[in-house]
């Protein structure tokens, strides 16, 4: 596992990188934080300190970004707000102890993966739902223009999709587009 550590080179920073190496991670450490983590980074430990709370790190909010675990030494709302803006998936407290790093890492990685999976599922479901709405709209166009039943309209759409080897959503889209052009002519 490739881990980037954004932490000053102090007792905490060294404790953290050494423990990550002990548990088998490839570690690179940087301070001040890079604009974005090196390519292929799986996870980032990020020291969220008063001097970085005003900086912006857009990569944290991208959908396939590596999980971020905050290392904090203050627990006041200024810092809490900063870790929420970074979208962290875990927090460890300063002073850093060896114990707890592994569990934080595993949980953060799991939550991050789970979130990505859910994101993908949601995108798929949204497009599916959108497709169903399109098909329903196309059906009602056919029913109205050709005076056929719901079931017959669906059969027309499906047959067209099969002969042209495209999805029913695409046929539905074509019908809706055609209809809007035809209605315009009227």
């Amino acid at each position: 596992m490739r881990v980037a550590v954004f932490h000053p080179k102090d007792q905490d920073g060294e404790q953290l990188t050494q423990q990550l190496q002990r548990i088998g991670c490839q570690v690179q450490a940087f301070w001040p934080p890079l604009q974005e983590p090196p390519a292929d980074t799986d996870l980032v430990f990020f020291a969220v300190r008063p001097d970085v709370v005003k900086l912006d790190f857009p990569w944290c909010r991208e959908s396939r970004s590596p999980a971020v675990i905050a290392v904090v030494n203050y627990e006041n709302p200024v810092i809490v707000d900063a870790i929420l803006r970074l979208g962290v998936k875990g927090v460890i407290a300063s002073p850093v102890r060896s114990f707890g790093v592994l569990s934080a890492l595993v949980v953060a990685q799991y939550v991050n993966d789970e979130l990505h999976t859910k994101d993908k599922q949601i995108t798929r479901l949204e497009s599916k739902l959108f497709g169903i709405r399109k098909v329903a709209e196309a059906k009602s166009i056919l029913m109205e223009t050709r005076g056929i039943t719901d079931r017959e309209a669906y059969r027309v759409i499906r047959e067209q999709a099969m002969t042209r080897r495209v999805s029913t959503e695409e046929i539905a889209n074509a019908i809706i587009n055609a209809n809007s052009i035809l209605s315009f002519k009227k």
Partner: protein
Amino acid sequence: MSQRDPIKVGVLFSDYDAVSASETAQLKGTLFAIQEINEAGGIDGRELVAVQYDPHASAGQYRVLAERLIIKDKVNVIFGCFMSHTRKAVIPVIEKWNRLLFYPTLYEGFEHSNNVIYTGPAPNQNSVQLAEFMTSNFGARIYIVGSDYIFPYESNRIMTDLVQQRQDSEKVGERYVGLDATEKDFTDIIADIKNERPDFIFSTVVGNPTQYLYRAYADAGLDPKEMPIGSLSTSEAEIAQMGADVAAGHFTSAPYFQSIATPTNRICLENFRRRFGDETVPNQTWEAAYFQVYLFANAVRQVGSDEIDVLLPALLGSEHNAPQGRIRIDPSNNHTCLYPRIGQAKADGQFTIVRESRRAVYPDPYLVTHSLGDWTAKLDK
């Protein structure tokens, strides 16, 4: 340890004028209390011995010296720290060795360590009262100026939250200057303030730069009657640095001012001046540094030891007649019940106390409840 041996205590403040007159005052307040206790016969005959280091305002030095106090000098208790990042540097050491830190400074809250006794005000004991006073007397258009570190960030966030509870509130500016700022760093800010015309200015400028803010304000011809500065940290000590004429008319929220008219306070100030002269200016951080040594001494006298495991139960819930009034350590959060006051600076460098709480206000370091206009939190007078 025999029952006649001296008791060594660590003292960790920067006696270094580049940082803050308030921290120097803390050092003197601590040493003053130790002298008084020893002259009165020590703790059941045992002398208090201060082992004192100067960390020169470096967080790294605070950590190293705290560890040296514990390992080499074998102290069980340290009195020390002014700025938040120095406290944060010392706490891991204190917790690792299970020792006790007494921290006598107003700070931004949101912290609890079982190895720390906090004797300065939490935000519910100074910010809430200042917000209430300033918004009801001057209005809720606020301009914020602060030093660039965590105490101002958090205090400003809290103040903004409080002020926004007023209907016509508006934050018209929020600016930060370095901890080593000089007069020229405030030129721009004062020009902007002149332009924005806020109802009041909230300053969380800390330490030596404080004087330059007030000086720049006065030089620009602004009038504290119309647009005063409200602060949590501008005390008699900072005013002595800037000159009383420049500070007159502005407001500070603190649990202690020299002008508190009680015999305890008057006698305490007289004793201090007799020993230490007029060079150190007593203020809120001086008072907390002073009374916290007494809290410690009282508890040691009660249990016969300065080790945290026996000492802490005696400390938590303990009371003491401090110069500000009878204070008490809240056993649930290790902070102190204090008397919020609002002072207006006068031409002689002292404060007229314009509002004060008759009863001690409980510390609420995590600001669980803080609403403006809550009459249970209203100050009397």
